[in-house]
């Protein structure tokens, strides 16, 4: 089963994502901020990264860009999550190199569908 890196500084959201995905059989790596997420992604090279945008230390946009410029994670599928519905933010996420963008709030089922979709494309 695929390994998924889940990064969100909001513990309640992170746990929710982890609960849903682990229940569906995925192996999970958790990160509490952007820097930690970058280290874990570079060290362990998961099959997918589910990253929050508004994180301390390194935000999701910059983290995505950095992962795209790091050889080990250049092709890592990235799903960004954000509460922002502004077109400019969504565009920025894709410009940084994200594969998909999920707007909060989302139901656990919507998350699962999106995760499967991104994994199947990679």
């Amino acid at each position, binding site marked *: 089963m695929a390994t998924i890196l889940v990064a969100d500084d*909001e513990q*309640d*959201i992170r746990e*929710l994502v982890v*609960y*849903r995905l682990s*229940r569906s059989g995925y192996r999970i790596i958790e990160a509490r901020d952007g820097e930690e997420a970058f280290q874990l992604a570079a060290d362990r090279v998961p099959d997918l990264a589910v990253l929050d945008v*508004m994180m301390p230390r390194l935000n999701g946009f910059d983290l995505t860009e950095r992962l795209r410029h790091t050889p080990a994670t250049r092709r890592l599928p990235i799903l960004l999550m954000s*509460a*922002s*519905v*502004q*077109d*400019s933010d969504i565009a920025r996420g894709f410009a940084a190199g994200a594969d998909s963008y999920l707007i*909060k*709030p*989302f*139901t*656990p*089922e919507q998350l699962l569908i999106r995760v499967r979709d991104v994994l199947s494309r990679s």
Partner: protein
Amino acid sequence: MDYRSFTRASASHETVHCVPDRLLGCIAGDLAQSAALACAEALGLRRLEVAASELQTLMDSTDEGIYRRDHEGRITFINRAALEQTGYTEAEVLGQDAHELLHHSHEDGSPYPAEQCPLTRTMYDRAGARFGGEVFWRKDGTPFPVDCSGFPLFDGETVNGLVITFRDITDSRQAEHQLAAQYRTARILAEAESIQEALPRVLRLCCDELGWQMSLAWEPDENGEMHCQSAYARPAWEEQLALLSHESVIRGQGAVGQAWQQGQHVYVPGPASLVRPPRPGDGLPPGELAVPVVRDGRVAGVVQLIGSNLPRGDGQPEAIETISAQLFQYAERKRSDEAAARMKDQFVSTVSHELRTPLAAMDGWLHILLDGEPGPLNEEQHRFLTTVKRNSDRLMRLVGDLLLIGQMDAGRFTLEMADVDIGDLVGETVTLFTGMAAEKRIELTADTGPGVVVHGDRLRLSQLLSNLVSNAVKFTPEGGQVRVRVGEQDGSCQIEVTDSGIGIPAAERAHLFERFYRASTATGTAGTGLGLAISKAIAGAHGGTIRIADSGGRGTRFVVEIPLHVAAGASL
């Protein structure tokens, strides 16, 4: 008054003899001279001396310029006010051709042939007349606008001269132009989107209203040079302006540099700043004015005006200062508007994150609990959690509405256009509220007829319909009816939502689409007062309208009209 003592006190022995000579020759004309001679014989010279002196005093005491010219146009008398206004001495004008001396050119500097002079014409018309719109010329070569009149003098049936009176109307005319300039500036600024758009128009009106050939706005850069930000010239001066506006100005250099250095307006009575010296025949009147725009104690810019007939730029610095103050206030207002828009943007993003994130966590966990994934729920647990979920959904909708309003205000909301079958959309919306209607035993029906397709944003149109249907169900008592009808009329898709509910008082209908407005009859029903404001904005973004139609005294009937063909890419 004792005339004898006045004459003794004011006139020397010599003037007693010379005054009557001059006056007899000049003022009263030949007719008066003969009359005076006759009078002199009859009444005695002494009496005449007094009368003549009195007349001279009278002439000199008025502020109206008065001169007399003989039938050949030569000046034979001129009063104190006329000399003061024209800058000549009496000796310089007596015997000179009046038209050639004082009235030789039009305001724009072109020659004014004597035969076209309306003052001269009064001699042929044999009747006095008043004239506006004329200019007289001073000894120093500057013109001034006058109101004037000419009255022919008769010797029996023969016209043998003309008395001309005139008044310098520079002040009142400038005041009129300045007021007009300020008024027009205010109008330009009311219409303009930005200062960059307004500036060239304001510079143009400075030329039009204040009588200049060219106007330039200069702004200092951080390297201590001023550059032209915007400029206007009357057509004949565009070439000169192009040269001038590409120059840069250093402190203290030229009229602009001096105004910058001194913080005071500078008037130069010649076209000092011209890059190319004026050529003969250019017809450029002299005079250049540079007015500093002082803000918070420093010179933030200079307005330069070149080529005016107006003497010394009287009153003009004040007018320019007023106009630049108007421009500055406008620029500051724009800046604060932009700051407010940025704050609103910031607020929208804060609402986005800070409110939606905890709601997202609540919502997600509720989903997981209600799905029974961690374990089965008993009936009561399920009911309680459903209540929590319903309220969390409501909060989420409110946050969504606020967010949408914020995006509309920030101009950041765009429609995703596609062909939308309104019949389908109404069907879906009605299905969505069937449960809610059934709980209140409300008969909810949709009459969608043949497919009506509009070009629009499906999500937003669905939001509009949901707002109307949910309002209708909410405000209709148990056992009532809600009907949704879709039709096509005059190139528009028409959607009607009619209910048999509590109705809306006529007086409140106009306010119903305002934000946070809630009808007095809406008490006891949950709502934010944003739904209809958003619905109206959505309809408007599609080029359509929403209104409350007459429903015959019972219930409420909303009518939405969306044009079938609307330009793509419209935004709220």
